[in-house]
Structure formats: structure tokens, C-alpha cells
């Protein structure tokens, strides 16, 4: 019974998307972000327009950017014999390495909790694949907070500007700690608590230039990398003794 209903919901939303297929157009300021030696984060501009009949007052836009999944461990410090050490830990097998959502209004007021969960939209609805040895929501909360501190997770309820109910844009910031891989931008047009149209655009974060080479050699040829580090240090030391010969 439940399966049938889920199928119907999926079909209905698909039909809605089809019908309004052309009512949402969007593009990114860049489709590729290069992590180079001078990388200090990047700003991504997501912009687009609502076309045709859909461009009426009451429309809202939600933009989300999701990075590749990576497993992480959250550890809690506990006091053992007077010293604070890492104690219990919880492993999250598939937490997005990066997640940002921006919208014209708070997403809680735009979509129901059920709908947000279905769309995996918003920090509260992120699936993190908790391995679940300890049933403690504090670990999930800690993960969200730590990621937000590093600007890897964010929720910006006023981050999308809608101009004349038609033109919209949002700025998303990718901090220096983003990991390379395929990213995805999802743009949703929402009206009366329902998703009227959706667009998704791919974004790639790549390591480029010297830093990419260094990382690759360090992981593919660790012996050569270590030897190079030794030679470089030896050379620097020799250079120092020549420059400052007393």
C-alpha cells in the first residue's frame, strides 16, 4: 500500500516537472572549480529565470549544492584519569563532504517536513548513513555543527534573491577545505508547498596545477615523494650553509 502511494507521488511529481519543464532555466558562473596552490575558496554564482506562466507572485526558489560523499568519524572527548582523551566515536558512512542550501525564504515554511525528507533537502533532512553503534543524536548534531563551523555545511534562508518574480540568483561559497569530485547543484521552483519545477546542473571540483601534482605523487608514489622531500630539505640546508657561510 505504502509502495503504491510512493509510486503515485513520484509519478505525480514527475508529471508536474514535465508539464512545467520549460518554466525554469538556470546556469552556473562556472562548471569547474580548480583547487590550485593559491586556492583560498571559490564563490559560485547560480542564476536563472522563471519563464512563462510560472513567473507569478508566490513563487519561491531553493538552490542546493551537494559534494561527493565521504565517510567521517565523530569522536567525543571524555575524561580519563584527569586527562581529556578521545572516547566514544560514531562513524557516518555517507555524509556529503559539502552541502549548502539557499532559498528565498526559510525552507521550513516552503515545504513540509515529509517533502523535505523525500527531497533530502536541508541540514535536518540530510541522510548521513549513521553506522549506529551508539544511538545518540548528539553525534549527528555535532557533525552538523563542526561542518558548519568549517563552512562545509550551510543553510541560508535568504540566500536566493528573486527579482520581479522572474530573475533569481544565489551566491554559494566553497571553502578551501572542499574535496575534489563531482558536485551537483539542484534548483527547485516551489509554490504552495509543492515543487513545480526542478533543474540540476553538474559542477566539478578538480585539483589543478602544482598542488594536484604534489598530492598525486604523495599518494601514488610515496617512496619517490619521500625521497624528493629528503633531497629538497638537504638542498635547502646546503643552500643555507652556502648563503650564510661564516
Amino acid at each position, binding site marked *: 500500500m505504502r509502495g503504491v502511494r510512493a509510486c503515485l507521488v513520484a509519478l505525480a511529481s514527475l508529471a508536474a516537472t514535465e508539464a512545467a519543464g520549460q518554466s525554469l532555466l538556470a546556469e552556473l558562473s562556472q562548471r569547474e572549480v580548480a*583547487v*590550485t*596552490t*593559491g*586556492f*583560498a*575558496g571559490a564563490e559560485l554564482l547560480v542564476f536563472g529565470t522563471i519563464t512563462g506562466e510560472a513567473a507569478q507572485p508566490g513563487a519561491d526558489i531553493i538552490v542546493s549544492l551537494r559534494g561527493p560523499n*565521504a*565517510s*567521517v*568519524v*565523530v*569522536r*567525543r*572527548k571524555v*575524561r580519563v584519569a*584527569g*586527562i*581529556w*582523551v*578521545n572516547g566514544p*566515536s560514531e*562513524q557516518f558512512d555517507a555524509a556529503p563532504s559539502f552541502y549548502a542550501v539557499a532559498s528565498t525564504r526559510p525552507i521550513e515554511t516552503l515545504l513540509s517536513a515529509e517533502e523535505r525528507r523525500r527531497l533530502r533537502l536541508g541540514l535536518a533532512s540530510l541522510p548521513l548513513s549513521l553506522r549506529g553503534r551508539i544511538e545518540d543524536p*548528539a*553525534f549527528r548534531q*555535532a*557533525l552538523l*555543527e*563542526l*561542518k558548519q563551523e568549517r563552512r562545509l555545511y550551510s543553510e541560508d534562508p535568504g540566500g536566493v534573491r528573486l527579482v520581479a518574480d522572474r530573475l533569481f540568483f544565489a551566491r554559494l561559497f566553497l571553502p*578551501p*577545505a572542499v574535496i575534489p569530485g563531482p558536485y551537483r547543484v539542484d534548483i527547485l521552483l516551489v509554490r504552495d508547498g509543492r515543487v513545480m519545477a526542478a533543474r540540476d546542473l553538474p559542477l566539478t571540483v578538480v*585539483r589543478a596545477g*602544482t*598542488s*594536484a601534482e*604534489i*598530492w598525486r605523487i*604523495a*599518494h601514488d608514489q*610515496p*617512496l619517490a*615523494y*619521500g*625521497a*624528493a*622531500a*629528503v633531497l*629538497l*630539505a*638537504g638542498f*635547502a*640546508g*646546503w*643552500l*643555507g*650553509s652556502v*648563503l*650564510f657561510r*661564516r
Partner: protein
Amino acid sequence: MQVYLPIAEMSVDASLVVGIGLAVGLLSGLFGVGGGFLMTPLLIFIGIPSSVAVATSANQTMGASVSGLIAHWRRGNVDFKMGAVLTAGGLAGSALGVQIFALVRQLGQVDLVVAVFYVVVLGIVGGLMVGESARAILRRRRQIRRRLHEHFWMHGLPLKMRFRQSRLYISVIPPVLIGFGIGLLSAIMGVGGGFVLVPAMIYLLGIPTSVVIGTSLFQVVFVTAAVTIMQAISTQSVDIILSLLLMGGAVAGAQFGASLGSRLRGEETRGLLGLLVLAVAVELAVGLLRRPDALYSLGPVL
């Protein structure tokens, strides 16, 4: 200027890192030690992951020690035979140390193990140094001469070998063990170990002070080189960019430090170094005992 560190996977202010190199280089030139024991905690303090801080600091210490070794080599102040014996022990110790390091990293306890090692080793060494230099300053007033070369149980050990340059005929067991211990510290703390090795060579082995620094640098260069390669293989946490920035600052700083150091007396210098070592130990001990600001921490799955 922000620079992206490829292995630490973060961007840092280049002038801050060069500044740390300069400051540590200044102190190492002043006191004649590598300064790794200051470098690693400072790097961790500015947010570099512990594993990267330790591995990179070992690499940086090697570069700094090469300069010193060349200078002492030119003056003929290196006992190569003693250096080789110490290095043999050091290589075994550092191999074990790198394995231990990889294991505790997997258990998520790197921060703790590094901090505990620092508190214990620096606490003991700093305390001994301060005490020794205080006694030396007092002794200077009273003019008591110690015997040059005391004999105790160590001199009854087998496998004796002649070290011509050090004018010693002793068993190889104590220098191998000392080298082993220093190698272990080098791998886990990212230090050269000069601040432990030099007193051990003088007081335990009885090596003449003229060849101590050069010989210890010989051991430090080879052991930190081995640690760099082993860390690169087992933890991939040596950051060449970070290491280069640090060396740039350290090489220049060491020159100022050396000229500054020549104006200070030996006992006072050692006393100051002891106080500095103690201060780092106390600071890290407080960090272990105080309730941390953030109870939760995030780490990759290894």
C-alpha cells in the same frame, strides 16, 4: 598571502608559516638545537593536523640540521664512527616509532599520544636542564672541579669499540640504545632529538663537547631523513610546501640566532633553553587537563 597546502588540504597564511620558521630558526641558532620540539606544537596550534605537523616537522628539521652538519664537518668536529652507531640505533627506533604512529592514528588518538610524549619528554628534559644550569652557575662561584671521566656499570658492557675522534673505548650497546630512543622520539614527536641526544652523549657516553654537536647532527640528519621517507610511505602526511615555507624562515632565523647566541654564556643559554622547554611542556599539559572548548571532533575514516 594565502597558500594552499596540498597534503594538509587547507590554506594558510604564508607569512605566518615563514614567521614560525623564522622564530624557531632564531631559537635553534641561539641554542644550537633543531627546534623541532617547538615547531610541531606551533604547527598544531595554527590548525595543521597533528599527523602532518609531526611528519613535516621531521622533514624541516632535517633541512635545518644539514646546514649545521656541513659547518661542523668543515671544522672536523664529526665522529663518523660514533655517528654511524647512533644512526643504526636511530633507524631501528624510528622504524618502530612510525609503526606506532600509524597505529595510534588509526585508533584516533594521535593528538593525545603526541601531547603526552611532549609533556613527559619535555617536562623531564626541561627540568634537568634548568636544574643542571642552576647548579653550574652556582658551581662557577664555588670553583669545584668534577672528574673528567667517571667510570660506572656502563663501562663493563661487552662489544667494546674504539672511537678515535671521541677518544673513547666503550661498548656499542649504550650508544645504540640511546640512538634507538631518539629515533622513537623523532618519529612520534617530529623532532630531531638534539635536546635529548646532546646531554645523553655528554653525560652518559662521555663524548668530548667539541665533537658532540657535529656528531649529534650527523645522527639527526640521517634519522629525520629516514622518518620523512617512512612517514611519506605509511601515512602520506609529509607536506613539501609547508616544509619549504618553514625552511625558508628557519635558515634565515638560525643565522641571527647563532650570532646572538655567541654573546651569551653556555650555562645561561642552557638555562634559558630549559625554561623554554618547560614552558612548552606546561602549556601542553594544561591543554590535556583543561576541559576542551569543543568536546566533539571530526576525523576521516582510516
